[in-house]
């Protein structure tokens, strides 16, 4: 059993104008935890993309549900939980488009998988909705001599 320290929790409505609040929160917490700037950018991108997926595909444009973001630390990892209350996700249906197929859209899942170390859905304990967990290892900064 891993012991996680919760660093932050926010709840936003499923609206595109809320994404900046999410990005700013991820940036602030990751910076406080001493992450490298390049990793902070990756975490901001991944959490933003995952929120977008919930807004566009989980709830869809006609439903404004809530999205909860929890940020936790487990030793040398930052862990992001995105909790929604939409219909359960069919994991088999979630896939990125083939990258050689040039068309708008379908890149979010690819970007998330590309920049995070671990991505998975975790058990909701029979509650309606989904919990997406994304992990990123915190790399140590190299001190200049």
């Amino acid at each position, binding site marked *: 059993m891993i012991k996680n320290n919760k660093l932050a929790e926010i709840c936003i409505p499923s609206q595109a104008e809320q*994404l900046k609040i999410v990005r700013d929160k991820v940036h602030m917490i990751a910076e406080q935890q001493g992450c490298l700037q390049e990793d902070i950018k990756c975490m901001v991108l991944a959490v933003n993309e995952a929120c977008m997926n919930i807004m566009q595909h989980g709830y869809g444009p006609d439903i404004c549900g809530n999205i909860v973001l929890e940020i936790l630390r487990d030793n040398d990892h930052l862990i992001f939980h995105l909790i929604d209350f939409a219909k359960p996700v069919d994991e088999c249906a979630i896939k990125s488009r083939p990258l050689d197929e*040039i068309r708008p859209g379908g890149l979010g899942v690819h970007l998330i998988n590309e920049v995070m170390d671990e991505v998975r859905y975790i058990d909701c304990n029979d509650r309606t909705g989904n919990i997406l967990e994304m992990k990123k290892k915190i790399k140590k900064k190299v001190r200049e001599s």
Partner: protein
Amino acid sequence: MDIKTRKEGVYTIIILSGEVDLHFSPRAREQILKCLGDKDNVLVDLSCVEYIDSSGIASLVEGYQVAKNNGLKFGLINVSDPAMQVIQLSRLDTVFPIHKSLKDRMEQDI
């Protein structure tokens, strides 16, 4: 996000700045498609883009495709580091015509 446009030779330059996310990318898409609808050759200047997500990238892909299908020119110029990072992660750096500057693009046309 802010959008400005100006004419430069045979091109309409669309200058995007700030954060091009799901909230603002529909405006970018609309502007790009409007210019292409007017039969303009389009260069999108990304020098002042601080953040772009997959919805912003999708607007650029759509512009690229519409231009290609209509025999118009489309490209990206002055791509900022944050924008280039996402373009590269999306493996689109070899798909979009990308130019260091407007001058660079213009020289290719000579």
